């Protein structure tokens, strides 16, 4: 991990309160990033905000020195981020955490289940899986039609189901409803989203091996402060999400 200054290349709103930010970084750095890893972002200089914000990597294009993040304006920090303009510098710790261990896995069909702002890391994951020759099915849940982003990007990579909580687009309900209704075969599943969703997935797909990506409020983002812990399976010790995760085997953590 290192500290690096990225230059904002482009920033655009892609859904309700949701922004895509393309960052210029040395390609040597961009190339290292694994799907599921995040960057730990300093949202402003000065002292008003003492904590960085973790944001997943949604895409990388090493040939163009580009790294893409997608974030939703949630509180003050993400609101500050949304105000960045091209040529501004952004202070990152990069790369943070461990990604999905797809290099070690033998698989031919992957199921990706994402909810809301958990969708971005699955995009980069899907790209990497497809590049490996893996068949990808994506089930993506959003609150309403206005929140949807990256539908086409996923459709280009594999079968994609969109579900909205209020039924304003696609099926109505939760990602788990889609999993109930459709008969999706897969060797492994990969999921990222709000904890209740992950819990439901962990339960529903208990017979499949899978990986989930977790969120927790972070201090250091590098494993030094013990802020972001999650109990291991027998609750005898804690993983640190920032360092041991954010991706975990679904069977090794208790949500």
């Amino acid at each position, binding site marked *: 991990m290192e500290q690096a200054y990225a230059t904002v290349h482009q920033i655009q709103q892609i859904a309700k309160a949701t922004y895509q930010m393309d960052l210029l970084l040395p390609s040597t750095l961009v190339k290292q990033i694994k799907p599921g890893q995040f960057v730990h972002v300093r949202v402003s200089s000065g002292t008003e905000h003492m*904590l960085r914000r973790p944001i997943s990597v949604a895409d990388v294009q090493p040939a163009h020195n580009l790294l893409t993040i997608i974030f939703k304006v949630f509180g003050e920090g993400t609101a500050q981020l949304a105000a960045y303009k091209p040529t501004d510098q952004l202070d990152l710790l990069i790369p943070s955490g461990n990604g999905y261990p797809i290099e070690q896995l033998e698989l031919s069909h992957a199921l990706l289940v994402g909810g809301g702002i958990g969708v971005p890391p699955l995009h980069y994951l899907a790209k990497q899986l497809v590049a490996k020759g893996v068949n990808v099915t994506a089930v993506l849940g959003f609150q309403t039609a206005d929140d949807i982003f990256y539908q086409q990007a996923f459709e280009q990579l594999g079968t994609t189901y969109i579900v909205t909580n209020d039924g304003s687009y696609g099926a109505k309900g939760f990602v788990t409803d889609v999993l109930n209704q459709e008969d999706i075969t897969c060797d492994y599943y990969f999921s990222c989203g709000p904890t209740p969703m992950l819990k439901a997935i962990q339960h529903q797909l208990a017979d499949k091996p899978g990986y989930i990506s977790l969120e927790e409020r972070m201090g250091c983002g590098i494993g030094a*402060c013990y802020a972001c812990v999650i109990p291991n399976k027998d609750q005898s010790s804690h993983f640190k999400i920032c360092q041991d995760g954010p991706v975990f085997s679904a069977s090794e953590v208790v949500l």
Partner: protein
Amino acid sequence: MSLAVQLPGLSLKNPIMPASGCFSFGKEYSQFYDLSKLGAIMIKAATEHKRLGNATPRVAETKSGMLNAIGLQNPGVDAIINQEIPFLTQFDLPIIANVAGSTIEEYENVTTALAGSDDIAAIELNISCPNVKEGGVQFGTQPALAAEVTRRVKAVSNVPVYVKLSPNVTDIVEIAQAVEQAGADGLSMINTLTGMKIDLKRQQPLLANQVGGLSGPAIKPIAIRMIYQVYQAVSIPIIGMGGVTSVDDVIEFLLAGASAVAVGTANFQNPFICSELIDQLADRLAHYGFDSVEQAIGKGH
């Protein structure tokens, strides 16, 4: 320009060190720079046995500060000695071990265990952790109890003991004098102030522990005031901390009466902060007319 400072048990090449709990046992930050550069390291609190700490969320951001309620998660003193300290011994770096506990016996036992290691230069006696249910903070708010735990820990320690004071008290001077009389070799101040943030969406305290310790630049004026007052009332040295983010902050702590300065929260914002402060200190001291760190200590009085 000499940056060196001599304190009981600590021969510091410079007065900058990471504060306990904000730097774990050094490994993570050693990715960023050579830890030998540091004046010292204050490692994460040790308790007798492994502790898992509090439920999450454990941290919350506040204006120019943060709240934490880690709850002393640590692998236990023996694991620290066996699994964490060896990594640190590769650096030229005095190790200050932070000792916590729920009972006086636990404080004694942790100290006794640490006395079995040759690699600890000093003990920081944490009688001020606001984030555990029993023990911790009472020891830091009642002069008689603070004195008692200091005496008992001194009796079993083979290295100098710096008592870490809680700012959550009516009269910090009274506590400082009590632990000085009980044999403390130095003081470390301040620990965090007890605070709370309420999550408006969930309509309940944001931290699982409800309250947490407030740290960061927000509390610097309180730290400076307390160090200034205590410096006038005791004759043991003070390691100062609370909200340091800049080299001017470091000098402000020295002027207030601190002999060395620890940096906590700022590491999260800028992992290079300790290294950068060390690089900047000599020039900035010269700018204010000082020839050495020692010359600046207490010069604000």
